[in-house]
């Protein structure tokens, strides 16, 4: 098991900076997901770790050793490409064993390893086939077999599931996760799909425009998004956001609805964020009333759309609700579940009980 350390890593093409200083340590044996919208630099970062792109500045350490100038083959890693990068003219077996001779393995050892990897991934019957005779899912498995056959301690994956259909993707998600655990791989997994990252990763990093937005466990990003970008990227549907003004009574949205988030700040304007699943049907306390603009009944849950200060908000209620458009509903939100973001979009931490009293006096 190997750890990977990135110290102020930057990448620039000519004058344009595409990675603007990344600091992160990926622990040995960790499943680390790199998430972000397309063009955010996540693939570039992975390729820099692999040694396929040069690092403009900063230090990359693999197991504590500076690795900036190491060749890709010297970094003890394997990589699965988005298009699988299989050799179309070679059989599955040749594809899996390609390059193993450079590790000083005899033909017999190569064959043994290949059979073992094929066994793990259920490819034993396909070893004599060419990639074009395989289905998308089987090709994906060949790419995985090729990664594990090298027994490299680090595995890099660049959107490996994006070419598969939804059902197969869900299956491969759990297979890859199990494989990583079984082989104790240090995994860096690039994806644009936040569901993949949330379900697979031990920790994840959200990138936007070459800058780190937040690093942490998936639930940290979900529960305490560091800024409005994280809030709107993580979660499906994403967090509802609307601008609010401070008044003596509390925070008020532009349509006059009043909120009392459990947060203290000196700001006069802020952005209020509430997750759709935290807007629940009101029993006694009502946070706000909403007139329904749209209803989607999905069987296990019902998605309700309504207007909040000029922004469309969504609420996710569990179960099937026989509501109709135009109907008024009463909603409740626990004040502790409300997030406030300052004018720069950064999260304002909720007040701690003790600090809160001290500040109350101060005010």
């Amino acid at each position, binding site marked *: 098991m190997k750890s990977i350390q990135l110290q102020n890593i930057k990448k620039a093409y000519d004058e344009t900076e595409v990675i603007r200083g990344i600091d992160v340590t990926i622990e040995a044996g960790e499943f680390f997901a790199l998430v972000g919208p397309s063009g955010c630099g996540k693939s570039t970062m992975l390729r820099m770790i*692999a*040694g*396929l792109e040069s690092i403009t500045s900063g230090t990359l350490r693999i197991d504590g050793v500076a690795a900036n100038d190491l*060749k*890709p*083959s010297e970094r003890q*890693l*394997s*990589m699965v*490409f988005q*298009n699988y*990068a299989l*050799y*179309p*003219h*070679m059989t599955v077996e040749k594809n899996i064993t*390609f*390059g*193993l001779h*450079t*590790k000083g393995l005899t033909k017999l050892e190569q064959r043994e390893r290949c059979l073992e990897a094929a066994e793990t991934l259920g490819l034993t019957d396909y070893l004599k086939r060419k990639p*074009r005779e395989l289905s998308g899912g089987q090709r994906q498995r060949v790419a995985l077999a*090729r990664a594990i056959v*090298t027994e490299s301690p680090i595995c890099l994956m660049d959107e490996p599931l994006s070419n598969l259909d939804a059902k197969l993707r869900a299956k491969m998600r759990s297979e890859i996760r199990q494989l990583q655990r079984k082989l104790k791989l240090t995994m860096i997994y690039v994806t644009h799909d936040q569901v993949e990252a949330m379900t697979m990763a031990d920790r994840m990093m959200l990138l936007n425009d070459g800058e780190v937005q937040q690093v942490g466990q998936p639930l940290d990003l979900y529960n305490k998004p560091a800024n409005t970008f994280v809030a709107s990227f993580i979660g499906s549907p994403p967090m509802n956001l609307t601008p609010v003004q401070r008044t003596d009574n509390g925070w008020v949205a532009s349509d006059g609805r009043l909120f009392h988030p459990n947060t203290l700040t000196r700001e006069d304007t802020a952005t209020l964020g509430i997750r759709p699943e935290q807007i629940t049907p009101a029993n006694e306390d009502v946070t706000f009333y909403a007139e329904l603009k749209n209803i989607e009944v999905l069987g296990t849950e019902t998605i309700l759309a309504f207007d909040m200060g000029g922004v469309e908000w969504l609420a996710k209620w569990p179960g099937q609700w026989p509501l109709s458009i135009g109907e008024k509903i009463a909603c409740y939100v626990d004040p502790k579940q409300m997030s406030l973001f300052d004018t720069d979009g950064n999260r304002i931490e909720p007040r701690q009980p003790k600090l809160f009293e001290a500040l109350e006096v101060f005010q």
Partner: protein
Amino acid sequence: MTVALPRQRVRTRLSDAASGLLYLSPSIALFGIFLVYPLFRTIYLSFFQTDTQGTPLSYVGGEHYAKLFTSASFWQSIQATVGFVLLTVPLTIIIALGLALLANEKLRGIGIFRTAFSATMGMSVAASSVIWMFMYNPSIGIFNRFLEAVGASEVQWLLDPQYALLSVSLATVWMNIGFTFLILLGGLQNIDRTLYESADIAGTNYWTQLRAITIPMLSPTLFFVGIISLINAFQTFGQIDLLTKGGPTNSTNVIVYAIYKDAFINYNVGGASAQAVLLFLAVLLLTWLQFKLVERKVHYQ
């Protein structure tokens, strides 16, 4: 209604065919006038004795063919043609492949080299031949100047039967490199970069990647270039006419040049037609063989 329907269908099909033919007619006309008609006319003429204008006078059957097989000059021109093909085709492809591999590297200013390497494609055979004629010139040409400088005796490049075919072949290789280079470079650029990146991570070296990835992935392009070059080499005329006129002592009298001489200088149209038919059959057979033997090793994606 049930009766009218099939009739209508027949009519639509007929008018579809008519409009299809109308669209094809320019191409059919050109193809017919300049390719199909001459081909059959040539086969026809090869069985006739003609006057100097090429008007058939009397049917002679296979006499022209029989004469050819016993004619020393015909065998000489076959020898020259085969020699020319063997000298030009492999050398052109190997050099062009080497240049294409170099030009495919991602380097600063590589565009200049790509332009330079493909530049001969834009030069006419006549202009290139004149350039090489100067370079081969025994007294002012650069080749003899060079030999002189290193102390070797000078060579009559285009006048010595020993060197003439080689000299013409070298000039031809140079002329053909541009086209072959461009096609091969295009083929190289079509190869997915991630295949090499994956091989880099696996730790294979440049030569393994060349042998195990580049050549197999390039094989359809190499096959195409091979066939085109072979056919081209069999049909070479311009540089022979400009540089050696088939001489000295018929050593560069390749078959197309021999056909030209027989038909338009010796006015033996029947004999020339017979040679043309044989050349056609030979090229047909070789191309068919190439498809049969080589294509099995070609990997199409």
